[in-house]
């Protein structure tokens, strides 16, 4: 028995096929979910993939957050279902208030695409248990609105509770406060990050590294062992 990992397609989602592929390569059963359906097709976990849902108009993630599928996801995430938001998915999670803070235009005002070094700060979330705390990984980063901001109190709280899950290394590519690349909710089931682990799962493709596969093997182990 393997786990079913759902990947949502919103209008304008771009990396859904990649996330489905990554789930499959990790050994899970990939399941496509559609933004207009409240039905999650009995998946065990959900990935909100990257892209420009609704063209990123208004604010990245602002329109998608109100879609029918998100109603169910918000409800289930609160009940403990693992959810991973990558890039646009992370933006949707903050807009939906499943994760604190907000994402703003990169401080240099350009889209940026690069191989990005990260440190895994929290290896105890549902999506990071196959890494070790402090481990350095390299995965692609590509976004326009990647600057993570939150008020000081929230940032201090995130730090104190170990909820900063990933931090940028070497270069802070977008002006994110405290070099934050990704965060988790208190329960550790909802994780969001700007870089793209699903683009780093095959040796030949993209960066040529497989540092991102751990996200998908982590969740698979957790679900299968549960």
């Amino acid at each position, binding site marked *: 028995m393997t786990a079913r990992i759902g990947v949502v397609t919103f*209008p*304008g989602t*771009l*990396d859904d*096929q*990649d996330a489905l*592929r990554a789930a499959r390569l990790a050994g899970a059963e990939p399941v496509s979910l559609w933004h207009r359906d409240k039905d999650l097709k009995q998946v065990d976990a959900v990935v909100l993939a*990257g*892209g*420009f849902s*609704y*063209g*990123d*108009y208004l604010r990245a993630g602002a329109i998608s957050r109100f879609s029918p599928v998100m109603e169910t996801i918000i409800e289930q995430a609160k009940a403990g279902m693992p959810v991973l938001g990558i890039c646009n998915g992370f933006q949707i999670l903050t807009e939906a208030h499943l994760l604190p803070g907000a994402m703003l235009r990169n401080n*240099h005002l*350009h*889209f*940026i*695409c*690069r191989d990005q070094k990260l440190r895994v700060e929290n290896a105890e979330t549902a999506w990071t248990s196959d890494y070790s705390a402090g481990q350095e990984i390299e995965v*692609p980063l*590509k976004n*326009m609105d990647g600057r993570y901001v939150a008020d000081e109190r929230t940032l201090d709280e995130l730090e104190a509770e170990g909820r900063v899950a990933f931090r940028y290394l070497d270069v802070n590519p977008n002006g994110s406060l405290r070099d934050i690349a990704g965060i988790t909710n208190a329960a550790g089931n909802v994780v969001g990050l700007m870089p*793209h682990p*699903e*683009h780093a*799962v*095959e040796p*030949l*493709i*993209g*960066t040529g590294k497989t540092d991102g596969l751990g996200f998908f093997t982590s969740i698979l182990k957790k679900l299968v062992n549960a």
Partner: protein
Amino acid sequence: MSLDTVKHASETPDSEQPWKELGLKEDEYARIREILGRRPTGAELAMYSVMWSEHCSYKSSKVHLKQFGEKTPENDAMLVGIGENAGVVDVGQGYAVTFKVESHNHPSYIEPYQGAATGVGGIVRDILAMGARPVAVVDPLRFGAADHPDTKRVLPGVVAGIGGYGNCLGLPNIGGEVVFDSCYQGNPLVNAGCIGVMKHEDIHLAKASGPGNKVILYGARTGGDGIGGVSVLASETFDDTKPTKRPAVQVGDPFQEKLLIECTLEIFQEKLVAGIQDLGGAGLSCATSELASAGSGGMRVDLEKVHLRDATLSPEEILMSESQERMCAIVEPQHVDRFLEICEKWDVIAVVIGEVTEGERLEIFWHGEQIVDVPPRSVAHEGPTYHRPFARPEWQDALQADDAGKLPRPQDGAELKDQVLKLVSSPNQASKSWITDQYDRFVQGNTVLAQPEDAGMVRIDEETNLGVAMATDGNGRYAKLDPYTGAQLALAEAYRNVAASGAKPLAISDCLNFGSPEDPAVMWQFAEATRGLADGCFQLGTPVTGGNVSLYNQTGEVAIHPTPVVAVLGVIDDVNRRTPIAFAEEGQLLYLLGDTKEEFGGSAWSEVIHQHLGGMPPAVDLDREKLLGEILISGSRDGMIDAAHDLSDGGLVQAVVESCLRGGNGARLVVPEGLDAFTFLFSESAGRAVVAVPRSEELRFTDMCGARGLPATRIGVVDGDAVDVQGEFALSLTELREAHEATIPGLLA
């Protein structure tokens, strides 16, 4: 408001018409009257004027472009040739690939962001209309002088537009060019290419057949985009109260295009269309007349059914509107409901606007009144043909006599070193990552190679690892010195880049950017370049599958350098065998393949060190290019080479520096016997590449080159953290990296 119906036109034969304002010549207007046997209606005049424009009818260029068909080499790969939205080639395993490059030069100068963005949007729809899923884009770009203030306006806007649109569509950007030259100051060249993949059986053609089949317009609502010119019709002739100013600028909505792509692919999958055409230049005029002209019967369209963004548009303006993100499909009646359902699923507006008829006329109605009644071929395919006079300019001889070989050369190692640093940090030779980092190269998860590699490469089948590669090249300096040779050099370079990546070159597309065809000198350049390209393609066995011509790239009397840009498409059976440019391991042996001669005409060295352009460009030997390509491909397939980098502008030293920086390793180089250090480093002789050979494969590799007759000279080894030309100078990677990478951000950031 009085509608200019067909009936009205017949009754008022002498009514004045603004044919001149619409860009028609007197004899062209006379021909329209002759074809119709009466004066055209306003709507007809609008259609003819735009479809017979240079941009749509290729009236100045088509007598020359004919050669691409006449000199087509034998090539089994060709499935669809010139004349369709884009050509299609067979890449094996049941897959077909379609690709094309187009220009959006003029709009990008006026409004860089939107001009470039809609350029990407347009080429992607062309590819989509062939039945293919777009899988990658490329963007050959040319700007004015790097330090000119207007370049700071144009370049960032263009790059943001290409990124903003392409990134949003989820298409990896896998290659292109950035060239600076003051000749492009008032005429930047924004060319954009797209590659699409489909199964053979999914090829779709733009034709309307089967009487009773429905014509469906779907995608964005129609607004007043790009109809600046035609508003003379609406305002001056028919209704003076209308706003006379309609935007000439088109604004793109990549989100809408993304939906259009997904929606169209789903429609293809269910086999719901009999014919399809994208809406680009000339909008509905073009789509309806081309579909009808290529089909068997006629077509009837009820124009008032078109969904409008601006309710005040006149029927003439609707026909001309260049609103983006629209497609037109021919659908059998039983499939219409399902077609509309899929559109609804993707939030795409769709409406049946007409049907294919038994007759032979394209008939367009506005609330029941007929405003167009024309033979569609006369609009779409039988536009005027010009045999423009051409003549070799009188300055050409003097230019060619101004030999770059006479320029003062560096005298010692220190001077060589200084010139190498100047070269690799010059805007044209510097790293372009400030630009390419604004493009998503990873999306879709199939990118095997992207910038700064020689060619972009994407996997198209996950099971078998089949892949395709593309490189685009053009060198206006070479083409200015000799347009025939220059065009062949562009072809040779793109061919070589594809081969260097390990892929087998199959076919080409081109984008021919020139000045005004009304200038005989420019027309000569055009004639020479097309002849060179056609001859070259014949000799290399790579057919031209399609392309684009952009004329009038000219400020006042001064034309841009003739700039034929060539895109070569290649195929690779297993992307695991791809060859990167990086010198990744110490100890790899460096071999220079090909012959190095004293060739500096049009070279980067002559430009950077002496601001000189003169002499003859490097000689072309296409048989040699073919042989080099075969060696590079065999070497990659059989694991004999770890890295390869083609030699082009900047010569050997530029290639070695790039490969060293990419791999993070230095190189020790020895000047081969019979060459001086300067020629060795800076010559731009064609037909060459540098390869890194693992020690264990040296014998096998040199045997292969020897047996096939390709000169292969050992020039050094991958080693250390400097580029060390023994006995001459050494430059540390740190210093080189700083020089190579700081320039563009310094100019633009």
